[in-house]
C-alpha cells in the first residue's frame, strides 16, 4: 500500500465519519459543525486528485459561506439549538433503498469501466483552464446556473419578508 493510498483511506474514513455525524447527530448545531469537517475532508480529497482550485473554492464557498449561513439560520431559529431533533422519519426505508441502488450503480460503474469514469487529462495548472472553459465552452450553462441562484435568492427574500 502506497502512502497516497493510506492518506486517501484516512481522509475517506474521516469524511464519511463526519457525514455520519451530520445525519445521525441529535444536536443540530453539532451536526452543522460536523458538516464543516465533512466539507474539509472533501476538499482534502480534491487536493489528492490534484484539483487544488476546486479544493480552495470548496473551503471558501461551502465552509466559509454556506455552512456559516446555515449556523446563522440555526441560531436565529429560537430554541432549536437546545432541542434534540428526530433523526429518522417514515421515509427511512425509501431513502435506504435509493442509497443501496446508488451504491450498486457505482460498484457496477467502477467494475465495468464506463468511458466517463476514465481519468481526466493531466493539466499542469487547472485554474487558467477552468476559467477559460467557463467563459467559452460552458458560458451558457454557467449563466443559467447563475440566474437560477439569483432566482432562489429573490425567492428566499420574498418568503422571508412577511409584509
Amino acid at each position, binding site marked *: 500500500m502506497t502512502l497516497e493510498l493510506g492518506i486517501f483511506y484516512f481522509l475517506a474514513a474521516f469524511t464519511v465519519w463526519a457525514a455520519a455525524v451530520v445525519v445521525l447527530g441529535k444536536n443540530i448545531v453539532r451536526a452543522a459543525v460536523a458538516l464543516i469537517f465533512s466539507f474539509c475532508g472533501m476538499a482534502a480529497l480534491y487536493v489528492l486528485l490534484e484539483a487544488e482550485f476546486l479544493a480552495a*473554492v470548496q*473551503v471558501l464557498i461551502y465552509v466559509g459561506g454556506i455552512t*456559516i449561513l446555515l449556523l446563522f439560520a440555526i441560531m436565529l431559529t429560537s430554541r432549536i*439549538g437546545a432541542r434534540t431533533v428526530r433523526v429518522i422519519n417514515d421515509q427511512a426505508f425509501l431513502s435506504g433503498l435509493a442509497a443501496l441502488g446508488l451504491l450498486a450503480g457505482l460498484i457496477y460503474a467502477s467494475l465495468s469501466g464506463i468511458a466517463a469514469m476514465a481519468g481526466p487529462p493531466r493539466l499542469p*495548472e487547472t485554474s487558467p483552464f477552468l476559467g477559460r472553459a467557463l467563459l467559452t465552452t460552458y458560458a451558457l450553462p454557467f449563466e443559467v446556473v447563475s440566474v437560477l441562484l439569483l432566482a432562489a435568492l429573490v425567492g428566499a427574500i420574498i418568503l422571508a419578508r412577511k409584509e
Partner: protein
Amino acid sequence: MTTFASLVERFYALTANWGLPWIVPTLVVMTIVAAVILGYIAVACMFLVWWERKISAHIQVRFGPMRVGGWHGWAQSIADGVKLLLKEDVIPAGADKVVFVLAPMVVFAASVAAYVAIPWAPGLIVRDLNIGILYMISISSLVVVGIIMAGWSSNNKYSVLGAMRSAAQAVSYEVPLVLSLLGPVMLAGTMRMGKLVEAQSGVWFGLLPKWFVFPQIVAFLVYFTCSLAECNRLPFDIPEAESELVAGFHVEYSGMRFAIFFLAEYANMFVVAAIATTLFLGGWKGPWVALPGLPAEVAHGLFGLFWFLVKCYFLIFVMMWLRWTLARLRVDQLMDFAWKVLLPIAFANLILTGLVLVLGKQVLLYVLGVALLLLIAVALTARGVRQGSAHVAGKAVRAQKA
C-alpha cells in the same frame, strides 16, 4: 533565498544516501518548518501585544507598561503569557464541552495554516502553491467557523450575539475582499504568490516602484478596509464590542484557551498584512546591497526578509493607529458600508481593470477612471456618515420629546 531550497535538497540527498525512506526526511523538514513558524507567531504576537499597548498609551498621552523587564516594559507580554499559562482551565457547566474545547483549536489552526503561502523573501516560502492567494483567503475564512463554535458552545447570550455579529460581518466583508484581490491577480495573470511579487519588479519613470498599489489604489483601500473587518478590529469590532457584549464570543474563555484566541487574532493580523504587502506593496522587493563575507544570494534574501517585515509591520501599525483613532460602527452602518459602498466600488474597479487590460495601455483613461472611483467612494462614505449622524440626531430629538 535559493540557498534555503538547496539546503533542503542537500538534506534529502544526504538521507537518501543513508538509505532512509523518503517519508522520514520529509517529516523532519515539515516538523522543523512548523516549529519555526509557530515560534515566529508566538514571538511576533508577544511583540505585537506590547506594541499595541504602547501605541494606544501614547495616542492617549499615557506611558503604557513601563515596569516589567526594565526598558519600557518590554517583558510585559512574557509575564502576561506566563500568567495565562498558569491559570485554571475553566469550562462552564452548561457548555457543550467538545465544541467548546475544539473552537480555539479551529481558530488557531486556520490562522497558522495561512502562513504556508507567505512569501517571506526571494525563494523563502513554505510552498509556492499555484492557487496561493486563493488558498490563503479560503483557509482564513475558517476562523469565523471557530468563532461561531466558541460563541454557541459557551451557552452564554453575549457570546452567541458576538458570534452572530461576527458571522454576518465576515460573510458580508468577504465578498468585496475577494473582489478587490482580483485586481492585482488580473494584472499579474497568476495566483502564485512568488509570481505576484515578481510581476511588481521594475520602476516607472525611473523612480516609482511598479507596485500594484499605484494602479490598484482603489482595490488596496477596499482590501485594507475589509481586512480590518475580517480581523474584527476597530472600527469593525462589533463582534467583541466591550461596552455592549463584555467580550463577545470569548466571554467564557479563560487561561490558555483565551490566550490561544488572542494569539490567533494577532497571527491573523499578520496574515492580512502579508497578503496586502505581497499583492500591493511589492512583497520583499526593495533596494539591497551585497554584504561583505556573504554570498550575494544570502544578502538578497536577508534584505528581502527585512523589506517584507518592514512593510508588514507598517501596515499593522496603521491598523493599530486606526483602532485608537476611529469609533466603532453600528450594525446597520456596517452592513450598509459593505454592501452599498465597498461592493459596488470593488466591482467597478474590476471592470475598469479588465477594460484597460483589453484595450491596452490607455494610461489617461485609467487615471481618470481611478480618480472617478475614489471620488464616488468618498461621496458614498460621506453620505453614509451623514445619514448615520442624522439617524442618531433624530433619535436624540425623539427621546427628548418623549
